[in-house]
Protein backbone atom coordinates (compact mmCIF):
# COMPACT_ATOMS: atom_id res chain seq x y z
CA UNK A 1 0.00 0.00 0.00
CA UNK A 2 1.47 3.35 -0.99
CA UNK A 3 2.31 5.56 1.93
CA UNK A 4 3.23 8.78 0.20
CA UNK A 5 -0.27 9.66 -1.00
CA UNK A 6 -2.34 11.91 1.24
CA UNK A 7 -5.24 9.90 2.64
CA UNK A 8 -7.99 11.94 1.07
CA UNK A 9 -6.43 11.69 -2.37
CA UNK A 10 -6.39 7.94 -2.34
CA UNK A 11 -8.56 5.83 -4.62
CA UNK A 12 -9.89 2.42 -3.75
CA UNK A 13 -11.33 -0.42 -5.77
CA UNK A 14 -13.67 -3.16 -4.70
CA UNK A 15 -12.40 -6.70 -4.46
CA UNK A 16 -14.40 -8.86 -6.89
CA UNK A 17 -14.39 -11.63 -4.31
CA UNK A 18 -17.02 -9.70 -2.37
CA UNK A 19 -20.53 -9.43 -3.73
CA UNK A 20 -23.00 -6.84 -2.51
CA UNK A 21 -26.66 -7.68 -2.27
CA UNK A 22 -29.71 -5.67 -1.34
CA UNK A 23 -32.08 -8.06 0.41
CA UNK A 24 -35.27 -6.67 1.85
CA UNK A 25 -34.09 -3.30 3.19
CA UNK A 26 -30.64 -4.51 4.13
CA UNK A 27 -27.38 -4.12 2.29
CA UNK A 28 -25.10 -7.16 2.57
CA UNK A 29 -21.50 -7.81 1.64
CA UNK A 30 -20.95 -11.49 0.97
CA UNK A 31 -17.52 -13.04 0.55
CA UNK A 32 -17.53 -15.27 -2.52
CA UNK A 33 -14.16 -16.92 -2.15
CA UNK A 34 -13.47 -16.95 1.52
CA UNK A 35 -14.68 -19.00 4.42
CA UNK A 36 -15.06 -16.81 7.40
CA UNK A 37 -15.34 -18.41 10.80
CA UNK A 38 -16.32 -21.64 9.07
CA UNK A 39 -19.85 -20.41 8.86
CA UNK A 40 -22.34 -18.62 6.63
CA UNK A 41 -20.77 -15.33 7.49
CA UNK A 42 -21.83 -12.04 5.99
CA UNK A 43 -21.48 -8.33 6.59
CA UNK A 44 -24.31 -5.87 6.92
CA UNK A 45 -23.73 -2.25 5.93
CA UNK A 46 -25.96 0.52 7.21
CA UNK A 47 -27.35 3.13 4.84
CA UNK A 48 -24.29 5.34 4.87
CA UNK A 49 -21.94 2.38 4.64
CA UNK A 50 -23.90 1.04 1.66
CA UNK A 51 -23.67 4.41 -0.08
CA UNK A 52 -19.93 4.52 0.51
CA UNK A 53 -19.59 1.03 -0.96
CA UNK A 54 -21.49 2.21 -4.03
CA UNK A 55 -19.27 5.24 -4.43
CA UNK A 56 -16.02 3.31 -4.18
CA UNK A 57 -14.70 1.90 -7.42
CA UNK A 58 -15.97 4.61 -9.68
CA UNK A 59 -12.68 6.37 -9.98
CA UNK A 60 -13.44 8.73 -7.15
CA UNK A 61 -10.92 9.77 -4.54
CA UNK A 62 -11.76 9.61 -0.85
CA UNK A 63 -12.15 13.37 -0.91
CA UNK A 64 -14.63 13.20 -3.79
CA UNK A 65 -16.63 10.53 -1.97
CA UNK A 66 -16.64 12.69 1.13
CA UNK A 67 -17.95 15.67 -0.86
CA UNK A 68 -20.78 13.64 -2.33
CA UNK A 69 -21.76 12.26 1.06
CA UNK A 70 -21.78 15.76 2.53
CA UNK A 71 -24.30 16.76 -0.11
CA UNK A 72 -26.48 13.76 0.65
CA UNK A 73 -26.39 13.45 4.44
CA UNK A 74 -26.88 15.87 7.31
CA UNK A 75 -23.63 15.79 9.21
CA UNK A 76 -20.51 17.78 9.86
CA UNK A 77 -17.44 17.39 7.65
CA UNK A 78 -15.42 16.29 10.69
CA UNK A 79 -17.90 13.59 11.68
CA UNK A 80 -18.26 12.37 8.15
CA UNK A 81 -14.53 12.21 7.51
CA UNK A 82 -13.93 10.31 10.71
CA UNK A 83 -16.62 7.75 9.89
CA UNK A 84 -15.67 7.47 6.24
CA UNK A 85 -12.04 6.75 7.03
CA UNK A 86 -13.01 4.25 9.69
CA UNK A 87 -15.20 2.31 7.27
CA UNK A 88 -12.52 2.35 4.59
CA UNK A 89 -10.11 0.92 7.14
CA UNK A 90 -12.57 -1.80 8.10
CA UNK A 91 -13.32 -2.73 4.49
CA UNK A 92 -9.62 -2.82 3.71
CA UNK A 93 -8.96 -5.02 6.72
CA UNK A 94 -11.66 -7.43 5.53
CA UNK A 95 -10.10 -7.48 2.08
CA UNK A 96 -13.27 -6.08 0.54
CA UNK A 97 -11.44 -3.08 -0.94
CA UNK A 98 -7.88 -2.30 -1.89
CA UNK A 99 -6.09 0.99 -2.35
CA UNK A 100 -5.11 1.80 -5.92
CA UNK A 101 -1.35 1.78 -6.24
CA UNK A 102 -0.34 5.20 -7.58
Amino acid sequence: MPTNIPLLEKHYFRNEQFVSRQIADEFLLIPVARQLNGDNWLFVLNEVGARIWELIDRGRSVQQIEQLLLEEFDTTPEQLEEDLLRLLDQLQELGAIEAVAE
Partner: protein
Amino acid sequence: MTGPIERRGGKERSSVMKDPQQISDMSAEVWGEQLFQRFKGKSFPLTGQWELTCRCNLKCVMCYTDPFNTPEQIRQELSYEEIIRILDEIHEEGCLELTFTGGEPFARRDFLDIYTYAKRKGFLLTIFTNGTLITPKIADHLKTYPPSMIEVSFHGLTRQSFDQITLGSGSYESCLEGIGLILERDLPLTLKTVGMTINRDEILKIKEFVAGLGKAQYKFGSDIRPRLNGSEDVYQYQLPHDEIRAIEQADEEFRAERRRKDQCKQEWIDQGQELCGGGKYKFHIDAYGRLQLCSNNRSRGYDLRQGSFREGFFQFLPEFPCPARRPSQGEPLVNIGTGDSQQKLKETA
Protein backbone atom coordinates in the same frame (compact mmCIF):
# COMPACT_ATOMS: atom_id res chain seq x y z
CA MET B 1 -21.90 6.08 11.23
CA THR B 2 -21.28 6.85 14.82
CA GLY B 3 -22.93 10.27 14.68
CA PRO B 4 -26.55 11.20 14.15
CA ILE B 5 -26.33 11.30 10.40
CA GLU B 6 -29.50 11.48 8.36
CA ARG B 7 -30.19 11.83 4.69
CA ARG B 8 -30.75 15.45 3.75
CA GLY B 9 -34.43 16.20 3.46
CA GLY B 10 -35.35 12.97 5.15
CA LYS B 11 -37.97 13.30 7.85
CA GLU B 12 -37.35 9.93 9.41
CA ARG B 13 -34.14 8.18 10.04
CA SER B 14 -33.82 4.94 8.15
CA SER B 15 -34.20 1.83 10.26
CA VAL B 16 -30.66 0.78 9.49
CA MET B 17 -29.46 4.04 11.00
CA LYS B 18 -30.63 2.87 14.38
CA ASP B 19 -27.55 0.72 14.28
CA PRO B 20 -24.64 3.07 14.89
CA GLN B 21 -22.24 0.62 13.30
CA GLN B 22 -21.53 1.12 9.63
CA ILE B 23 -20.66 -2.50 9.21
CA SER B 24 -21.55 -5.50 11.32
CA ASP B 25 -20.66 -9.10 10.75
CA MET B 26 -22.94 -11.98 11.63
CA SER B 27 -23.92 -15.44 10.54
CA ALA B 28 -26.58 -15.77 7.88
CA GLU B 29 -28.69 -17.64 10.40
CA VAL B 30 -28.69 -14.77 12.89
CA TRP B 31 -29.29 -12.27 10.12
CA GLY B 32 -32.22 -14.32 8.82
CA GLU B 33 -33.78 -14.54 12.28
CA GLN B 34 -33.53 -10.77 12.71
CA LEU B 35 -35.08 -10.25 9.30
CA PHE B 36 -38.07 -12.41 10.12
CA GLN B 37 -38.62 -10.79 13.47
CA ARG B 38 -38.95 -7.50 11.62
CA PHE B 39 -41.13 -9.03 8.89
CA LYS B 40 -43.60 -10.39 11.42
CA GLY B 41 -44.97 -13.27 9.40
CA LYS B 42 -44.68 -11.73 5.96
CA SER B 43 -43.53 -14.23 3.34
CA PHE B 44 -40.01 -13.92 2.02
CA PRO B 45 -38.04 -16.51 -0.01
CA LEU B 46 -34.94 -16.52 2.14
CA THR B 47 -33.90 -20.11 1.64
CA GLY B 48 -34.51 -22.82 -0.93
CA GLN B 49 -33.62 -26.35 -1.85
CA TRP B 50 -33.08 -27.20 -5.49
CA GLU B 51 -33.07 -30.77 -6.75
CA LEU B 52 -30.96 -30.06 -9.81
CA THR B 53 -31.16 -33.57 -11.19
CA CYS B 54 -32.46 -37.04 -10.44
CA ARG B 55 -29.52 -38.64 -12.20
CA CYS B 56 -27.10 -40.45 -9.93
CA ASN B 57 -24.24 -42.90 -10.25
CA LEU B 58 -25.67 -44.92 -7.33
CA LYS B 59 -29.02 -46.57 -6.75
CA CYS B 60 -29.57 -46.38 -3.01
CA VAL B 61 -32.28 -48.76 -1.92
CA MET B 62 -34.29 -46.11 -0.10
CA CYS B 63 -33.76 -43.25 -2.58
CA TYR B 64 -36.98 -41.47 -3.52
CA THR B 65 -35.59 -39.87 -6.69
CA ASP B 66 -34.12 -43.07 -8.12
CA PRO B 67 -37.16 -44.03 -10.25
CA PHE B 68 -36.58 -40.82 -12.21
CA ASN B 69 -32.93 -41.65 -12.81
CA THR B 70 -33.69 -42.77 -16.34
CA PRO B 71 -32.58 -41.33 -19.70
CA GLU B 72 -36.13 -40.41 -20.58
CA GLN B 73 -36.74 -38.52 -17.33
CA ILE B 74 -33.31 -36.90 -17.40
CA ARG B 75 -34.00 -35.45 -20.84
CA GLN B 76 -36.89 -33.56 -19.30
CA GLU B 77 -34.79 -31.91 -16.61
CA LEU B 78 -34.03 -28.20 -16.63
CA SER B 79 -31.26 -27.11 -18.98
CA TYR B 80 -28.32 -24.99 -17.84
CA GLU B 81 -29.90 -21.92 -19.47
CA GLU B 82 -33.20 -22.50 -17.71
CA ILE B 83 -31.45 -22.96 -14.36
CA ILE B 84 -29.49 -19.73 -14.78
CA ARG B 85 -32.64 -17.83 -15.70
CA ILE B 86 -34.45 -19.14 -12.62
CA LEU B 87 -31.40 -18.45 -10.43
CA ASP B 88 -31.48 -14.84 -11.61
CA GLU B 89 -35.16 -14.59 -10.67
CA ILE B 90 -34.59 -16.14 -7.24
CA HIS B 91 -31.71 -13.74 -6.69
CA GLU B 92 -33.89 -10.81 -7.65
CA GLU B 93 -36.46 -11.80 -5.02
CA GLY B 94 -33.82 -11.83 -2.28
CA CYS B 95 -33.10 -15.50 -1.68
CA LEU B 96 -29.85 -15.83 0.26
CA GLU B 97 -29.37 -19.53 0.98
CA LEU B 98 -29.68 -22.33 -1.53
CA THR B 99 -29.09 -26.05 -1.18
CA PHE B 100 -28.22 -27.94 -4.35
CA THR B 101 -29.23 -31.58 -4.19
CA GLY B 102 -30.22 -34.46 -6.41
CA GLY B 103 -30.03 -37.25 -7.35
CA GLU B 104 -26.37 -36.52 -7.31
CA PRO B 105 -25.63 -32.91 -8.28
CA PHE B 106 -22.09 -33.74 -9.40
CA ALA B 107 -23.62 -36.17 -11.91
CA ARG B 108 -24.60 -33.09 -13.92
CA ARG B 109 -21.66 -32.17 -16.12
CA ASP B 110 -22.53 -28.52 -15.77
CA PHE B 111 -22.94 -28.60 -12.01
CA LEU B 112 -19.75 -26.70 -11.22
CA ASP B 113 -20.75 -24.01 -13.73
CA ILE B 114 -24.16 -23.67 -12.06
CA TYR B 115 -22.59 -23.69 -8.62
CA THR B 116 -19.97 -21.07 -9.49
CA TYR B 117 -22.54 -18.83 -11.15
CA ALA B 118 -24.66 -18.96 -7.99
CA LYS B 119 -21.64 -18.28 -5.76
CA ARG B 120 -20.69 -15.23 -7.78
CA LYS B 121 -24.25 -13.93 -7.51
CA GLY B 122 -23.85 -13.95 -3.73
CA PHE B 123 -25.86 -17.01 -2.73
CA LEU B 124 -24.75 -18.99 0.31
CA LEU B 125 -24.66 -22.56 -0.93
CA THR B 126 -24.94 -26.01 0.57
CA ILE B 127 -24.35 -29.17 -1.47
CA PHE B 128 -25.98 -32.51 -0.74
CA THR B 129 -23.89 -35.24 -2.37
CA ASN B 130 -22.97 -38.90 -2.13
CA GLY B 131 -19.33 -37.81 -2.25
CA THR B 132 -18.24 -40.46 -4.72
CA LEU B 133 -17.76 -38.17 -7.72
CA ILE B 134 -15.59 -35.60 -5.96
CA THR B 135 -12.18 -35.45 -7.63
CA PRO B 136 -9.12 -33.42 -6.60
CA LYS B 137 -10.00 -30.91 -9.33
CA ILE B 138 -13.55 -30.51 -8.02
CA ALA B 139 -12.31 -30.24 -4.45
CA ASP B 140 -9.83 -27.55 -5.50
CA HIS B 141 -12.62 -25.61 -7.17
CA LEU B 142 -14.74 -25.86 -4.03
CA LYS B 143 -11.78 -24.58 -2.05
CA THR B 144 -11.68 -21.53 -4.31
CA TYR B 145 -15.42 -21.00 -4.03
CA PRO B 146 -16.26 -22.58 -0.69
CA PRO B 147 -19.77 -23.74 0.09
CA SER B 148 -21.38 -23.06 3.43
CA MET B 149 -21.60 -26.82 3.91
CA ILE B 150 -21.08 -30.08 2.03
CA GLU B 151 -23.39 -32.80 3.32
CA VAL B 152 -22.31 -36.30 2.35
CA SER B 153 -24.64 -39.27 2.68
CA PHE B 154 -22.83 -41.97 4.61
CA HIS B 155 -25.03 -44.93 5.41
CA GLY B 156 -22.62 -47.72 6.28
CA LEU B 157 -19.30 -48.29 7.96
CA THR B 158 -18.14 -51.29 6.02
CA ARG B 159 -17.72 -51.89 2.32
CA GLN B 160 -20.37 -54.56 2.54
CA SER B 161 -23.09 -52.57 4.27
CA PHE B 162 -22.31 -49.39 2.34
CA ASP B 163 -22.48 -51.03 -1.08
CA GLN B 164 -25.51 -53.02 0.00
CA ILE B 165 -27.34 -49.73 0.44
CA THR B 166 -25.94 -47.85 -2.57
CA LEU B 167 -25.99 -50.89 -4.88
CA GLY B 168 -22.78 -49.50 -6.26
CA SER B 169 -19.66 -51.62 -6.20
CA GLY B 170 -16.71 -49.60 -4.93
CA SER B 171 -18.92 -46.77 -3.70
CA TYR B 172 -17.57 -47.10 -0.15
CA GLU B 173 -13.98 -46.43 -1.21
CA SER B 174 -15.04 -43.64 -3.59
CA CYS B 175 -17.02 -41.96 -0.86
CA LEU B 176 -14.12 -42.17 1.60
CA GLU B 177 -11.84 -40.67 -1.05
CA GLY B 178 -14.27 -37.81 -1.56
CA ILE B 179 -14.49 -37.22 2.16
CA GLY B 180 -10.70 -37.19 2.36
CA LEU B 181 -10.45 -34.60 -0.41
CA ILE B 182 -12.94 -32.37 1.36
CA LEU B 183 -11.17 -32.66 4.70
CA GLU B 184 -7.73 -32.09 3.21
CA ARG B 185 -8.97 -28.74 1.96
CA ASP B 186 -10.55 -27.85 5.26
CA LEU B 187 -13.98 -27.45 3.70
CA PRO B 188 -17.06 -27.58 5.92
CA LEU B 189 -18.37 -31.13 6.02
CA THR B 190 -21.35 -32.96 7.48
CA LEU B 191 -21.81 -36.70 7.17
CA LYS B 192 -25.35 -37.98 7.50
CA THR B 193 -26.96 -41.33 7.86
CA VAL B 194 -30.48 -42.48 7.27
CA GLY B 195 -31.19 -45.12 9.88
CA MET B 196 -32.61 -48.23 8.26
CA THR B 197 -33.08 -51.90 8.95
CA ILE B 198 -29.89 -52.56 6.98
CA ASN B 199 -27.60 -50.29 9.02
CA ARG B 200 -29.37 -50.20 12.38
CA ASP B 201 -26.36 -51.72 14.16
CA GLU B 202 -23.85 -49.35 12.59
CA ILE B 203 -25.34 -45.95 13.33
CA LEU B 204 -23.60 -45.27 16.60
CA LYS B 205 -20.35 -46.64 15.18
CA ILE B 206 -20.67 -44.31 12.20
CA LYS B 207 -21.14 -41.45 14.63
CA GLU B 208 -17.92 -42.44 16.39
CA PHE B 209 -16.15 -42.70 13.06
CA VAL B 210 -17.23 -39.18 12.12
CA ALA B 211 -16.08 -37.85 15.49
CA GLY B 212 -12.70 -39.39 14.75
CA LEU B 213 -12.45 -37.38 11.55
CA GLY B 214 -12.08 -34.30 13.70
CA LYS B 215 -13.63 -31.55 11.65
CA ALA B 216 -16.80 -33.15 10.36
CA GLN B 217 -20.28 -32.84 11.81
CA TYR B 218 -22.79 -35.66 11.94
CA LYS B 219 -26.52 -35.92 11.35
CA PHE B 220 -28.71 -38.91 11.95
CA GLY B 221 -32.12 -39.13 10.36
CA SER B 222 -34.80 -41.73 9.93
CA ASP B 223 -36.93 -40.11 7.27
CA ILE B 224 -37.85 -42.56 4.54
CA ARG B 225 -40.18 -41.22 1.89
CA PRO B 226 -42.21 -42.82 -0.86
CA ARG B 227 -40.46 -42.74 -4.20
CA LEU B 228 -41.33 -40.02 -6.67
CA ASN B 229 -43.23 -42.53 -8.79
CA GLY B 230 -45.45 -43.26 -5.81
CA SER B 231 -43.89 -46.60 -4.91
CA GLU B 232 -43.81 -47.35 -1.21
CA ASP B 233 -41.45 -50.31 -1.42
CA VAL B 234 -38.86 -48.23 0.45
CA TYR B 235 -40.78 -48.69 3.68
CA GLN B 236 -39.41 -52.21 3.94
CA TYR B 237 -36.23 -50.49 5.17
CA GLN B 238 -38.00 -48.28 7.69
CA LEU B 239 -36.95 -48.73 11.30
CA PRO B 240 -39.77 -49.01 13.81
CA HIS B 241 -40.29 -45.89 15.87
CA ASP B 242 -39.19 -47.53 19.10
CA GLU B 243 -35.93 -48.65 17.53
CA ILE B 244 -35.19 -45.13 16.34
CA ARG B 245 -35.92 -43.81 19.82
CA ALA B 246 -33.69 -46.50 21.32
CA ILE B 247 -30.80 -45.46 19.09
CA GLU B 248 -31.33 -41.84 20.05
CA GLN B 249 -31.50 -42.69 23.73
CA ALA B 250 -28.23 -44.61 23.55
CA ASP B 251 -26.21 -41.52 22.76
CA GLU B 252 -25.96 -38.34 24.81
CA GLU B 253 -25.77 -35.99 21.83
CA PHE B 254 -28.65 -37.71 20.09
CA ARG B 255 -30.70 -37.43 23.28
CA ALA B 256 -29.93 -33.73 23.55
CA GLU B 257 -30.83 -33.17 19.92
CA ARG B 258 -34.12 -35.04 20.35
CA ARG B 259 -34.95 -32.93 23.41
CA ARG B 260 -34.12 -29.75 21.51
CA LYS B 261 -36.30 -30.73 18.54
CA ASP B 262 -39.23 -31.81 20.71
CA GLN B 263 -39.00 -28.65 22.79
CA CYS B 264 -38.79 -26.47 19.73
CA LYS B 265 -41.79 -28.18 18.16
CA GLN B 266 -43.81 -27.80 21.34
CA GLU B 267 -42.96 -24.11 21.57
CA TRP B 268 -44.10 -23.57 18.00
CA ILE B 269 -47.35 -25.40 18.71
CA ASP B 270 -47.90 -23.42 21.92
CA GLN B 271 -47.26 -20.18 20.09
CA GLY B 272 -49.57 -21.17 17.25
CA GLN B 273 -46.73 -21.04 14.75
CA GLU B 274 -46.61 -23.09 11.61
CA LEU B 275 -44.43 -26.16 11.87
CA CYS B 276 -43.04 -25.75 8.39
CA GLY B 277 -41.52 -22.74 6.67
CA GLY B 278 -42.46 -24.05 3.23
CA GLY B 279 -44.06 -21.22 1.29
CA LYS B 280 -43.31 -18.81 4.10
CA TYR B 281 -39.55 -18.48 3.93
CA LYS B 282 -38.58 -21.76 2.28
CA PHE B 283 -39.22 -23.31 -1.09
CA HIS B 284 -38.24 -26.34 -3.14
CA ILE B 285 -37.63 -26.70 -6.85
CA ASP B 286 -37.57 -30.09 -8.51
CA ALA B 287 -35.43 -31.17 -11.45
CA TYR B 288 -38.13 -30.16 -13.91
CA GLY B 289 -38.57 -26.62 -12.64
CA ARG B 290 -41.62 -27.14 -10.47
CA LEU B 291 -41.74 -24.85 -7.47
CA GLN B 292 -43.05 -26.68 -4.42
CA LEU B 293 -43.50 -26.14 -0.71
CA CYS B 294 -40.76 -28.60 0.20
CA SER B 295 -39.08 -31.77 -0.99
CA ASN B 296 -41.47 -33.81 1.12
CA ASN B 297 -44.62 -32.15 -0.18
CA ARG B 298 -44.88 -32.26 -3.95
CA SER B 299 -48.61 -32.55 -4.14
CA ARG B 300 -48.79 -29.23 -5.96
CA GLY B 301 -46.24 -27.49 -8.10
CA TYR B 302 -45.91 -24.24 -9.98
CA ASP B 303 -44.15 -24.56 -13.32
CA LEU B 304 -41.22 -22.16 -13.41
CA ARG B 305 -40.73 -22.92 -17.10
CA GLN B 306 -43.97 -21.09 -17.76
CA GLY B 307 -44.25 -18.58 -14.97
CA SER B 308 -42.05 -16.39 -12.80
CA PHE B 309 -40.57 -17.30 -9.45
CA ARG B 310 -42.14 -14.17 -7.99
CA GLU B 311 -45.63 -15.20 -9.00
CA GLY B 312 -45.04 -18.80 -7.94
CA PHE B 313 -43.68 -18.01 -4.51
CA PHE B 314 -45.94 -15.15 -3.49
CA GLN B 315 -49.21 -16.07 -5.20
CA PHE B 316 -49.25 -19.83 -5.39
CA LEU B 317 -47.11 -21.46 -2.70
CA PRO B 318 -49.06 -19.90 0.20
CA GLU B 319 -52.19 -21.55 -1.16
CA PHE B 320 -50.72 -25.03 -1.60
CA PRO B 321 -51.99 -27.50 1.01
CA CYS B 322 -49.62 -28.49 3.78
CA PRO B 323 -50.43 -30.63 6.82
CA ALA B 324 -47.82 -28.80 8.89
CA ARG B 325 -49.69 -25.53 8.66
CA ARG B 326 -52.00 -24.44 11.40
CA PRO B 327 -55.37 -26.15 10.96
CA SER B 328 -57.08 -22.89 10.12
CA GLN B 329 -54.73 -22.45 7.20
CA GLY B 330 -54.22 -26.06 6.28
CA GLU B 331 -57.45 -26.85 4.53
CA PRO B 332 -56.94 -28.03 0.96
CA LEU B 333 -57.74 -25.31 -1.52
CA VAL B 334 -59.70 -26.04 -4.63
CA ASN B 335 -59.67 -22.92 -6.74
CA ILE B 336 -56.29 -21.31 -6.99
CA GLY B 337 -55.65 -18.41 -9.28
CA THR B 338 -57.48 -17.67 -12.46
CA GLY B 339 -56.90 -17.50 -16.18
CA ASP B 340 -53.35 -17.98 -17.39
CA SER B 341 -52.04 -18.36 -13.88
CA GLN B 342 -54.35 -21.26 -13.25
CA GLN B 343 -52.94 -23.06 -16.28
CA LYS B 344 -49.43 -22.77 -14.91
CA LEU B 345 -50.36 -24.99 -12.01
CA LYS B 346 -49.43 -28.54 -12.68
CA GLU B 347 -50.09 -31.50 -10.49
CA THR B 348 -46.97 -33.47 -9.82
CA ALA B 349 -46.77 -37.24 -9.94
